[in-house]
């Protein structure tokens, strides 16, 4: 004897106002605002790094090497006397580049593959699912180690690894959403008008499945950034002297006894960015996915 009485009550959920309600919910959530602030800070600091940075990130200043935080060097210097704060700002550019390119390419590839799997014939669906599951089953680091061993480390390789390892997540989500839509009457109505399959997918399926994927993308940014940092830390990603959070962390690790602050300085932006994007993604999910959202902040 369960039924939601609100479903039949007027004004209980007029869809017309839903978007405004959601915007209000979003602006009213402290988690969302915190996340949004951190994300904006991250993006603007990376974009304006050349303006903001007090020093050239690669300028050597041997006499003041391995200093702790001072007025001249807010975040200290490394073993070559390079200003860590400037290097962190420029490292943010690498992180942003990986995040933007990696996540957007993974999102669009996953979206297309997922829609094809969900809408296409059963055998194709099974084939693609097999491929997604195979990739998902492969540990990212092992995949990275194997490929780097073959072709040598580079930023492009980091990107490719990031994309390959995150595509299946998007694809599976898009596939599930497409499957749910596939038998809806409006899709049948489009077919009855003579709309081609690419048209149906691009104009009628895509706008309805992309929403949750964007939320997943927001939550994937920190994952991607940490993959890059992790690979660079291991020396499998960005090569010195290019500044990246991972390489700074690695260099700091080498001198941890002489200048312990460097590891801390390199970790802070990584932690902040991760938290910021996670909060933002979670807030978006709470608002747009009513199943997950109920009873959360």
């Amino acid at each position, binding site marked *: *004897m*369960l*039924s939601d*009485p*609100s479903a*039949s*009550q*007027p*004004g*209980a959920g*007029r*869809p*017309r*106002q839903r978007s*405004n*309600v959601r915007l*209000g919910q979003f602006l009213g959530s402290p988690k969302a605002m915190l996340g949004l602030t951190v994300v904006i800070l991250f993006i603007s600091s990376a974009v304006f790094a050349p303006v903001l940075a007090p020093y050239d990130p690669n300028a050597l200043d041997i006499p003041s090497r391995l200093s702790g935080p001072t007025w001249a060097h807010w975040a200290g210097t490394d073993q070559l006397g390079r200003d860590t704060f400037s290097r962190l700002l420029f490292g943010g550019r690498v992180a942003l580049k990986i995040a933007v390119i990696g996540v957007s390419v993974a999102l669009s590839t996953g979206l297309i593959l997922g829609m094809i799997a969900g809408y296409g014939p059963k055998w194709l669906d099974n084939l693609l699912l097999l491929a997604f599951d195979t990739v998902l089953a492969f540990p990212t680091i092992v995949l990275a180690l194997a490929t780097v061993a073959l072709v040598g480390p580079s930023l492009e390789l980091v990107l490719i690894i990031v994309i390959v390892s995150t595509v299946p997540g998007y694809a599976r989500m898009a596939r599930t959403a497409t499957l749910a839509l596939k038998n*809806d*009457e*409006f899709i*049948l*109505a*489009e*077919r*009855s*008008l*003579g*709309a*081609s399959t690419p*048209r149906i997918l691009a*104009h*009628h399926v895509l*706008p*309805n499945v992309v929403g949750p994927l964007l939320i997943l993308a927001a939550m994937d940014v920190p994952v991607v950034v940490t993959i890059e940092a992790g690979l660079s830390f291991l020396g499998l990603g960005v090569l010195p002297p290019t500044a990246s959070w991972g390489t700074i962390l690695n260099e700091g690790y080498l001198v941890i006894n002489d200048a312990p602050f460097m590891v801390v300085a390199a970790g802070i932006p990584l932690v902040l960015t991760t938290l910021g994007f996670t909060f933002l993604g979670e807030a978006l999910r709470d608002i747009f996915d009513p199943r997950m959202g109920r009873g959360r902040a």
Partner: protein
Amino acid sequence: MNAPHLDIRGLTVDFTTPTGPVHALRDVSFAVPQNSVTGIVGESGSGKSTVLWSILGLLSANARVRRGEILFEGEDMLRKGTDALRAARGQDMSVVFQNPMASQIPVLTYATQMRDILYRKRDLSAADKRTLAVEMMERVGIPDPARRIDQYPHHFSGGMRQRAGIAMALLPRPRLLLADEPTTALDVTMEAQVIHLIRDLATELETTVLVVSHNLGLIAEMCDHVVVMYAGEVVEAGPVRELFHNARHPYTRALLDCDPARITRKTRHLPVIEGSLPDLSAPPKGCIFAARCPKATLHCEAEAPSAQVSGGRHSVRCHFPVTEKSVPDAPRILDAPHATPPDAGDIPLLEVPYLNVRFRTMGPIRARLNGVADPFVDAVLDVGLTVRRGETLGLVGESGSGKTTLGRAILNLTRASAGSVRFEGREVRNLPERAFKPLRRDMAMMFQDAIGSLSPRKTVRALIAEPFVIHGAQDRDLDREAERLADLVQLPRAFLGRYPHELSGGQARRVGVARALALNPKLIIADEPTAGLDVSVQGDILNLMAELQREKGLSYLLITHNLPVVRHVSDRLAIMYMGRIVETGEAEAIFNQPGHPYTEALVRGVPQPDPDQRRTAPPLRGEVPSLMNRPRGCDFAARCPFAKDECRQIKPSQSTRADGRVIACHFPLI
């Protein structure tokens, strides 16, 4: 006259919405006498369900009761605490829900669900509870209840589930039973059974019933007292005969006039109520119905009428109540005026000599492993039909009869397994989509779900113009075309910028018609074009379709289960049962004298909106058998009141009558 069991006085409820409060109920007062069946009738937005949820204390979180009292056996439900209310629900009062598919717990057996309902009865052992539950299942007519009670809801068919729903509602022996549109999700033949079941059990168990429905036939057949609601107010209330034969409020009168079942002459123009519901966030100062009332005066717009009571219990809220009787004409043989007799000599526009659609039920490997020789189910079986130019063919059947599948197979949206479909003499069955595409200009489809068949993220303008884009007519001015079509279907141009979820059912239906008409088709396959629409709006859509037919010489294949409607708009009928056509012929002839027992059951299955024409028993017992195990003989034999041994053994073949009627029955009624 009994003392009121439930007495609602001055109930006023608001809903808080982001755009301000909506005054959903305003000063609603009525009484439900003990041991009677009272019905609340109204269209969508009338607030009839809100009344029901107020009684139960289950209003949604944004609702606020501003004033009023709900006296149940003398106690005000609105003043009761949460615990007392919870105790009352399911013990003193319980509910039969509209959709038995959604209101039962899919992962628990009926035995568990029913035992849980009795959880307050601590003195009963689990075995006692089970016995009570089995008894109640038997009472509602579930065969073999001791075994079936251990099954899950998905094992039950729709009608059986609603029976189980009634059993669950009656199990705690409530003194008040609330029923929210109890038959809306059911087919005609099931509807009649459920109406009688609730009525009989209520009498037997001495339960007072309050039923909410938009269906005048159900109200007339089931209720002793009727409350008519419009836009959050009670406009008229009284004993059922008074209300149907002596309706005094112009709205009640208009509602009765709109019901196609009360229109005894075949008409191609159904009455409608002009205008739309008032905006309840700012209800008018005067009479709530004034804006749509043909008799409204300045006085009506200035001052709200109060309820006038006449003849004992008949109250009406109107300054100038109608005085003439509203007794419907006695049913009589309808004359059938034919506007344009379809030309018979020509090649028919659509000809389906025979068509089969089969669906696979399990994969070939699984079928082999399970020893199933024929892992298919026949949704459409040897169906033949013809649609001539300018004609409307009504395809009638209950859910599961295969009528929708047939429509989709004709349009090449579902693969037909065998047979032939000829459009203008050309074979089109299972053409590859590329070859079929040009034909989609000539054959359009209107889908059952008016809003759900519109792509949700597109504006109405984009949706209406889409057929031109698809068929490469980009050189046209799409905005102009969209406006032309909006005008054609009488949709205000302001709606072109809206999204489907911002439309009402009627408006969305107009968009569907506009899309279907965009490329000047010759044939429109309309799947339940009036499903989900209010009576006052359904006439509008049907009139529009008829008008367009006259202007453009369109042909319609009208797929529906709604017999009163199909009678007024069809030239010919085809009746489908379990994937087969059991009878075809001229619509009027079939209505006047059904030839197949199933047709007769359908025709008589519609509850008449006249309390003097109540039936003593439902016309048909039992349910549609599963397509998975078709009977050996006639598909209808198990439910047919006239079935003989021959019917159970041998499939009847189709025989053609002198007047062109085709009937598939061993012992036709004519």
